[in-house]
């Protein structure tokens, strides 16, 4: 790859954005560079970015999982409900992960084995899993978990890092290896590019899809539990609406919604861009709709500006000859 191609790469653009945003943050807020702030910056969105990693694989594979936020909610509600019923916390956690796995099996079964579009299946899941969570906790807020559980989400365990951040970093490394070095990752790309060709090459496409949906839901369940640990209290609306934020991160990372292209480096950078932007704006007392509008505009501009540059470039070139 020559230098120009490298410069025009999506990841380079994201890196440039990240540098600019970090620079502005440093310039405008004395609090930005504090260790506590940097930890908070991750910590405040840690569940979303964990889910964004597996969502990357799902979208590259040409599918989508809209039910992740509801599964997050469901998992935390299952734990809360079982805990309230008197289960020991560890078992309640295991049960919640298992419930996540079941949700993934349901998504995967209808998508891979019945052949329904994943958008439709997981849209039903978005409503349905949230509904099950609601049945479990109704209008209650359930708290009072053992201290060790709350500490998992709230207290630093590894130097200044919380266990969630460590899980995220580990999972990023694992996902990067899976996506870019392993057989599964290769199959994910192949299926996203051309599902029929994969099938005609003897790839067990159904099994791979099922696996991805199960992984997606189980990771979402884990993220839901981390969220519950961080907040220390569980309600029926846990993580509601997170799916759009997660998908935004993945798309800004340069992953095509039609599957087949994108990489984890891009998603990692896009996560950093969004988190730093949010943090910087938060420290500059910009919140609410202004913040979401800025991120929305960034999302559009990040694709629009390079496109426009390319168009102008080709038009100029056309004039030369």
């Amino acid at each position, binding site marked *: 790859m020559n230098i120009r191609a490298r410069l025009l790469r999506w990841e380079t653009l994201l890196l440039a954005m990240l540098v600019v945003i970090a620079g502005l943050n440093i310039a405008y807020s004395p*609090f930005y560079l*504090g260790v*506590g*702030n940097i930890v*908070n910056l991750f910590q*405040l*969105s840690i569940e979303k970015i964990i889910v964004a990693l597996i969502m990357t694989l799902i979208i590259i594979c040409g599918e989508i999982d809209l039910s992740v936020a509801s599964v997050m909610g469901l998992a935390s509600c299952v734990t809360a409900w079982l805990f309230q019923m008197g289960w020991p916390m560890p078992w309640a956690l295991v049960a919640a992960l298992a419930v996540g796995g079941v949700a993934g099996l349901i998504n995967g079964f209808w998508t891979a084995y019945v052949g329904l579009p994943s958008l439709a299946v997981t849209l039903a899941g978005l409503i349905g899993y949230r509904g099950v969570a*609601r049945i479990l906790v*109704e*209008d209650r*807020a359930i*708290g009072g978990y053992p201290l060790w559980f*709350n500490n998992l*989400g*709230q207290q630093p365990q590894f130097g200044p890092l919380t266990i969630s951040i460590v899980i995220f970093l580990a999972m990023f490394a694992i996902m990067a290896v899976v996506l870019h070095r392993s057989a599964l990752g290769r199959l994910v790309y192949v299926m996203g590019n051309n599902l029929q060709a994969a099938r005609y090459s003897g790839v067990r496409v159904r099994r791979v899809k099922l696996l991805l949906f199960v992984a997606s839901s189980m990771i979402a369940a884990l993220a839901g539990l981390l969220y519950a640990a*961080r*907040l*220390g*209290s569980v*309600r*029926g*609306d846990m993580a*509601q*609406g*997170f799916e759009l934020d997660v998908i935004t991160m993945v798309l800004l990372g340069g992953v095509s919604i039609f599957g087949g292209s994108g990489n984890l480096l891009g998603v990692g950078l896009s996560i950093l861009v969004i988190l730093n932007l*949010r*943090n910087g704006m*938060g*420290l500059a*007392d910009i*919140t*609410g*709709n202004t913040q*979401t509008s800025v991120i929305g505009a960034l999302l559009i501009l990040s694709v629009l500006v390079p496109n426009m540059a390319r168009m102008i470039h080709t038009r100029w070139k056309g004039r030369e000859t």
Partner: protein
Amino acid sequence: MKKLLLATAAAAMLALIVPHGAKAQSAVTGGKAVDMVLLPKFLGILPFDQAHQGAEEAAKELANSKKLQYLGPTPENSVAGQIEIVTNAATQGVGAIMISNNSGDQIVPSAKAAKAKGIKVVTWDSPIPSAEGEDVFVAQVDFSETGKIMADMALSILGKDGGKFAILSASPDAANQNAWIDAMKNALKDPKYSKLELQGIVYGNDQSETSYNQALAMVDKFPGMKLIMAPTSVGIVSAAKAMQDEKLCDKIKISGLGVPSEMLAYTKNGCAPQFALWSFVDLGYLSYYTAYALATGAIKAEAGASFKAGRMGNYAITKDPTRKAGLRILMGPFSLYDINNVEAAAK
């Protein structure tokens, strides 16, 4: 001069209702620079904006050179957004933060972290249920009182013979609505209200379209229902509109908590003959005074402390009887609105 007289008169009157055990009032001296954040449940809703006005008014009176930051999340991101704002405020090391808590106990870890950094955490409108991480809650009204008021309104609308009614709430997770509904259920145990029969609770998620559809559906689901009690300003308007559109106002009345300017038409045409609310402007004003007093060290967050909150007069911190723990400042009282006073209040 006249104003001053009025204010003094009001203060004197209020001093009478200040609860027992009030010590001598601490003086709240203005002119100190304190970074303060007012955090509504989310942006774009009238009551919170009114509270903001009240807080600004207080800020001006107290000549705080630091600008009051009115920061809030978007509605769809309320919980996570509130937590984020509290956390960032802690990072910035502001002096005080005033939260209309929409996150139940989920905000506790971040509020505790803020408190640990020496930030005064005042809640208003909606408290932290467990009171952990909270210095004091500025209660608009007594939450048990709310239940009684709602039962009273129901009885006065339905008449002595009572009748069946149902509740249209916000979301199942709305802590103050849940508290009020519980209070009402408690109140209903009083034989005075024995003729009132609660048929069920329905949720409109504080969205006008959902509330509207839910109100219509209630008509079918609860046969014989004569009243919809909606302790939410969004729900009550939508329910009233729904009954009006279906020409059911003769059979089914609407009541609850509503903003007079939004309810005017329905009170006038008899769909919603009576409803209640408190002044959000005053609530914002009082919250600011409280937070400022705490942040400047004029008072301490402990039962018995009292202070003079500008035009609103004297207030004291007491234990919150409606929660297991926590302190509160009770603003009160309710304003009841009906055909006689709604027009004036709507202006």
